[in-house]
């Protein structure tokens, strides 16, 4: 895989992911891509733009509107030794494909005594903030994390979107790759070429000494904004786990050792969410590091309502994160 170069250019998420797909398909004939509207049209998010033309209809194709069949095709093709990538148009639609993911893809390796690998990647946009209401705004990472056999990737930067997608496709297990719709227009300067961001390595997005904030996906950006607002008053360290399973606990512990304070932020519901899980792990591995109660700012106990006034109230805003930091640090 060619290394990244020093030439830098502006890139948006969709193009970044499209380039990662393109490179993976060029490098390995076993990588195939399918889903609804992704062939001829290039995907409703333009994820697969140009790829059918380049790699042909056998490797990039449209399916019927049947997520269960799509997921089954993906898992079965992986069992046969291909390295399929599928797009689920919104992660919310995983609800109709859960069995093929959870009872099949995630379990077949175990059920076969380790005989079958299932190298497959499911790409799905997630998250609230686009006024798409209750059935197009979810972030279901907690379900997938609670499902042994799956890996879960939630990139926040354009650099990571490309590098982690490359890693996900290269992984030999089923990987849920969830990108946030509200990051659609993000633009970042990144290198040319192709690179890999390995699964399981957190990034320290901002160094600080007063408090450790763990935040991923869209919430990483909101946490950064909150930290910027507090600049000069509170020194905030921000850790972006980038992948939730595998999870880089060491980097979090290293930070908490320094700050003594832990705040986790995520937009999906609090109950049985990622925040509680990180609190559990940090308590188990570094309780003595915590100077005060670890906190989680997460989604309200509600489906996502439509009207902006309501939607903003159920998902953490910059002001919520800032307030939580201020309360903790006083």
């Amino acid at each position, binding site marked *: 895989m060619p290394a990244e170069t020093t030439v830098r250019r502006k890139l948006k998420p969709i193009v970044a992911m499209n380039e990662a797909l393109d490179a993976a398909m060029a490098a390995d004939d076993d990588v195939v891509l399918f889903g609804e509207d992704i062939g001829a049209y290039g995907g409703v998010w333009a994820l697969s733009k140009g790829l059918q033309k380049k790699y042909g209809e056998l490797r990039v194709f449209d399916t019927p*509107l049947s997520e269960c069949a799509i997921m089954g095709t993906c898992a079965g093709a992986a069992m046969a030794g291909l390295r399929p990538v599928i797009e689920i148009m919104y992660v919310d639609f995983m609800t109709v494909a859960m069995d093929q993911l959870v009872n099949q893809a995630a379990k077949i390796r175990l059920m076969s005594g380790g005989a079958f690998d299932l190298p497959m990647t499911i790409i799905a946009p997630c998250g609230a903030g*686009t006024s798409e209401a209750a059935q197009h705004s979810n972030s279901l990472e907690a379900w997938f994390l609670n499902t042994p056999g799956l890996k879960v990737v939630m990139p926040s930067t354009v650099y990571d979107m490309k590098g982690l997608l490359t890693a996900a496709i290269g992984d030999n297990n089923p990987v849920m790759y969830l990108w946030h719709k509200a990051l659609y227009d993000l633009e970042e300067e990144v290198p040319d070429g192709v690179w890999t961001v390995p699964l399981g390595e957190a990034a320290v997005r901002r160094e600080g000494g007063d408090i450790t904030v763990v935040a991923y996906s869209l919430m990483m950006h909101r946490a950064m904004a909150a930290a910027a607002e507090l600049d000069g008053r509170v020194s905030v360290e921000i850790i972006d786990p980038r992948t939730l399973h595998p999870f880089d606990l060491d980097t979090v512990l290293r930070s908490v050792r320094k700050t003594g304070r832990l705040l986790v932020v995520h937009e999906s519901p609090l109950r049985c969410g990622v925040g509680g899980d990180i609190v559990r792990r940090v308590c188990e591995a570094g309780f003595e590091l915590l100077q005060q109660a670890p906190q989680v700012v997460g989604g309200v106990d509600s489906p996502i309502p439509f009207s902006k006034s309501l939607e903003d109230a159920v998902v953490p805003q910059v002001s919520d994160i800032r307030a939580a930091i201020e309360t903790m640090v006083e």
Partner: protein
Amino acid sequence: MNFTADELKRMYTTMVLIRKFEQNSIEIFAERMKRGDFPGALHSSEGQEAIAVGVSSQLRPDDYVFSTYRGHGHAIAKGMPINKVVAEVHGRATGASRGYGGSMHLFDKSINFMGGNGIVGAGLPLALGTAYAAVKRGTDQVTAVYFGDGGASQGAFHEAINMAAIKKYPIIFICENNQYAATTHVSVNCPIEDIGDRAKAYGIPGPVVDGNNLFEVVDTAGAAVSRARGGEGPTLIECKTWRHRAHCMVIPEHRPGKDREHWANRDPIDQMRDHLTAAGIADAAAIEQLDADVQEQLKAAVAFMQDSPFPDPAEIAEVVYAG
């Protein structure tokens, strides 16, 4: 069908109201999007109005309807006040769902309008529930459920029609086959010519009609409703139709020009206008008046919406859970 002149005019104006409402919403959304705002998804049913109006003409107020994310027409035709529709689509507390639902989730309990649905095909299983409730209670209410040509590829389609057929539930399953599911042609979703023919897999009738012809829809829906109300079980109706616009506002038009031309002369509202004129029910001036009345109604609804407050987040917890 034996409609009075007034009924025919009302059906016409309902179709026009749906059309004008959708055009108006798109304008307002486009305006907001120009300002960098993203007001949500909007799926226009322009071109498909005859189906909603034709089916609803055969339903009683207490019959149940389950709709889709492309459901403004279904709601208006079932009798949802236009004020509630406009207010909901623009997120006001006075909307059909008090601003919690949005365009894809219009609900109105008072007319048994059981909601739009953002999950393709997901209305069909829900329809079993109201149909069963009617059977259990011994009422003769019918349930109507809409879905698209793409929806017929979902597992839910199969499970629901199968169970309805076995139980002889009073349901009419209405497939609005507008030839495309998002950008995907129906041939990628269905290997046979007519989705209606899938009824054979369940031993029920599967009539295929021109969904742009109000009277064809009326006759077929009428027969299916009678059958359902009479305890003879469900019907699958396929309505061939065409949406004027691409899937939603963020998808550019991509459908081949020759398809568009084929359907250009088959607009259901044009056909109905011609019918009213030819039958001597309304001349050009009367039509103009009807259209103007609709515009007035819509204008008032937009004003109502603009005067309405946004919902108060303090109420969320009570809206999520029942006491």
